[in-house]
């Protein structure tokens, strides 16, 4: 007993420099955030309505992150591996969604039945992303199961590159502008919050999708199988669960969500190119870590929080600290958020939901 205490003490002694540094970072960040927020709110640069606008934008952006984050978090929950190419799965959905929407925008349907047309585009995007996700799993990840974790991760990095430049080769490297949807122009106000119609659509679609996913995972047989596999693969297979199929299903569902996110992203920002998946992918991963990886609800929460951090951060903190042209640093805020979470609370807001670490 005494020995272990001694060991611990020595270990703590050795780490103390690092710990001191990390504590210093924590304190500095907290002080900076508090001071910056105080300064920018008291300066009155933005009106309350503008702040609310930023919040709505953050929520709708965060919803897309959440949808993409689901794919990361589910795959991580089952395989303990970051599917780095998931951002490209998202981009593929967005890209094919564009082509379908663009094709439909020339028809009468686009004006008369816009939501049916969008639904078709949505299904096409989801189908594309699902199939790419499945092919990835089959070709690149399945043969590498059980190897050191960095091996499939590096493969995923390669797949990400491959997909990016395949799309650039097939469809051209220029950015594709989504056709405008008449029915989604304008907006409305609910209790002081002004929603653009697109933002409202994104939020509603995400909620519907989340409920569907929740029911699928919690209530269906296949969902139960997935949960069993993420708990213990070997035991699940002994119980008669087809592990390969369950894992493929996880990739399929994650891909479908990313595809849906892709189309919604396209509608929000109006354009997509072959590199769009990179940033969204990293941010969605950040969201899944933020919420607690392996945790479905966590992915959504993490997405929303990250969306808010990203949209409010520059105006709230950086502006208050006197940083010029703070909006260029939006991505820096997002990445710093990732670093900070991993320092402050590596298990995320809602906590990780992983079976015991076996790696």
């Amino acid at each position, binding site marked *: 007993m005494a020995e272990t205490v001694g060991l611990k003490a020595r270990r703590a002694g*050795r*780490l103390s420099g*690092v710990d001191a*540094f*990390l504590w210093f*970072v924590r304190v500095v960040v907290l002080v900076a955030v508090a001071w910056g927020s105080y300064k920018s709110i008291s300066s009155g640069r933005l009106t309350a309505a503008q702040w609310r606008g930023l919040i709505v934008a953050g929520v709708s952006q965060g919803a897309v992150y959440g949808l993409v984050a689901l794919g990361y978090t589910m795959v991580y929950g089952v395989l303990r*591996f*970051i599917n780095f190419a998931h951002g490209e799965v998202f981009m593929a959905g967005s890209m094919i969604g564009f*082509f379908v929407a663009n094709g439909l925008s020339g028809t009468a349907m686009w004006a008369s039945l816009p939501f049916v047309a969008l639904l078709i585009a949505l299904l096409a995007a989801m189908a594309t992303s699902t199939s790419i996700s499945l092919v990835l799993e089959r*070709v*690149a990840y399945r*043969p*590498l199961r059980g*190897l*050191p*974790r*960095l*091996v*499939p*991760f*590096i*493969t995923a*990095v*390669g*797949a*990400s*590159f*491959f*997909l*990016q*430049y*395949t799309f*650039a*080769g*097939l*469809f*051209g490297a220029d950015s594709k502008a989504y056709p405008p949807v008449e029915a989604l122009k304008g907006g409305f106000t609910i209790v002081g919050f002004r929603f653009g119609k697109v933002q409202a659509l994104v939020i509603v679609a995400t909620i519907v999708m989340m409920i569907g996913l929740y029911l699928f995972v919690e209530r269906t047989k296949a969902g139960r199988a997935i949960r069993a596999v993420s708990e213990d693969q070997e035991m699940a297979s002994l119980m008669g669960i087809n592990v390969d199929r369950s894992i493929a299903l996880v990739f399929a569902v994650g891909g479908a969500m990313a595809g849906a996110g892709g189309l919604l992203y396209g509608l929000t920002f109006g354009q997509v190119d072959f590199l769009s998946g*990179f940033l969204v992918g*990293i941010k969605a*991963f*950040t969201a899944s*870590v933020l919420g607690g990886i392996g945790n479905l609800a966590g992915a959504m929460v993490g997405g929303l929080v990250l969306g808010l951090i990203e949209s409010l951060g520059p105006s709230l903190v950086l502006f208050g600290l006197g*940083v*010029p*042209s*703070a909006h*260029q*640093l939006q*991505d*820096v805020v997002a*990445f*710093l958020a*990732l*670093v900070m979470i*991993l*320092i402050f609370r*590596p298990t995320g807001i809602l906590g990780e939901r992983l079976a015991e670490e076996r790696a």
Partner: protein
Amino acid sequence: MAEAVQTDLREELLPAREVDLRRSLRVGLLGGLTAVFVSAVGMVQSFDEAGLVVGPLSFGDILLLAVPFVFGVLAGQPPPVLKGFAEPTPGARNVIAGGVAGLLTGVVLGVFVALVDTFDVRDIFTRISPELLDILTYGQTLAVGILIGLVVNVILGLAGGASKLLGQRWRRPLFRALLVVVMLGVLEALVSQILRGARLGRVQDALYAPTGELQLPSAIAIGLGLFGLGLWLRDQPRAVRERIGAMERERRRLVAAGALVALVAVLGILPRVLGPFLTEVLNIAGIFLLMALGLNIVVGLAGLLDLGYVAFYAVGAYATAVLTSPASQAFSPELSFWVALPLVILAAVAAGLLVGTPVLRMRGDYLAIVTLGFGEIARILFLSDALKPVFGGAQGILRVPDIAIGPIEFRGPELFFYAILAFALVASYIVYALQDSRIGRAWMAMREDERVAEAMGVNTVAAKLWAFVIGAMLASFGGALIAVKVGSIFPNSFNVIVSFTVLIIIIVGGMASIPGVIVGALILVALPELLREFQEFRYLLYGALLIVMMLRRPEGLIPSRRRARELHEEEVVQDAWLRAQAADASATPSGE
């Protein structure tokens, strides 16, 4: 009795005697999809502009023809048998399997051509053009073209399958000779420059037509010559290796030192032979080599997957530029390169600690993503208006002066080559010396299992920080050199693609292996610079290469022996088990 059981078992375990039709069809389908892919993504057409051999054959054609052949070879290859079982003797079924695969490849490609011809998809697939169709139909009408394509694919598939009949002894020299001839055609610019530099203009004229294609007779002659040479020298490399292996330690060292001196001497006169353009290509590869050597420590030795390595490169470049150039607005001490260098190294060390400390306790894949984030943060900060007075924002920093030793200025690619060479030699030595040092062993222990390493008394905190710091230092050398070489730096040249390129170099070359990293840098950086047609598909091929390497050869082309053993631990164990079984079997009398 026992013998009868054994033969029964063997019959059962051997692959079926007839053609495995499903397998050949699957391989053929993959071949067809590959052919469609390279066509639709634009490779065939782009490569078509590169002539290969005088006459109708372009590199694009070779690409198209290679697909059924390669997949024919794959289909003709019998499925792997367990060690200890005899491989079935090759026969007609290998050829037929190859032919079936070739046929399906042709069918898939034919369907693609027919579809593309009937439906206009140019608005969506930008690369599917009439010119591509023209290539795919061999310049004939649609029906005739598809028919020719089918026949050609079947023949090549059959040929691929038949190559199995040749046996290892003939096949390997044949494939090597074919590959060398194709490379000679592809690398025309490089080869003729070398020949010209070595004053062998006559050879060059014999080899290449004035337009740059290989002359057909000389291509055939070279192919045959290499094939003969390959047959003749079949066992030579191994014999040489064995002879060196058998030498005493002292003499082996002597041979190694002699080889090294010869290598350095060759490197010394290289710029003269290569001329400015090729030296420039080599310089770029050298800068990537410097970074790869550094990342090799972080990833290869210490096992910390750093995807934001470009940050250190950027820090090196910006520190050099700010300290030496007069162009930075807020701060420009205009030091000379050599005075600035220690400060650059200091900046890199600080950056290494800054990135290394927060990630100390993260698990491997989180570390990768966080470092990726740091890489992007660095780029965005250098780009931002907030730091514009120092780093120049999007306009970057111009007028970075050249390196000078006394009156000599390292200007122009040829002189600059020596600067890069010096740095590369120093870096190689650092990595070489560190590999087997105390810290090097600590890194490798940590790579294998952090917890166990810690329990064995390795100070993992210090080891990790050292890895980041030394990696950052080597990358900053690369950055300093690129800043001086180009004379100006812009934030967008420090994007994530640089990190990935360096990562791919060390993975393809072989993790934790210095020769591997050098070869990797030459293949992955210098080669694409030489092949203009490759440029736009460079990253596509990088990605594919990364996947294939991880699936087939995770230890890299020239692996470090230790690393390879770790990755194939299971196989090694299996082999040992089989050997033990064999030993047991021979030890116990057969009558029992």
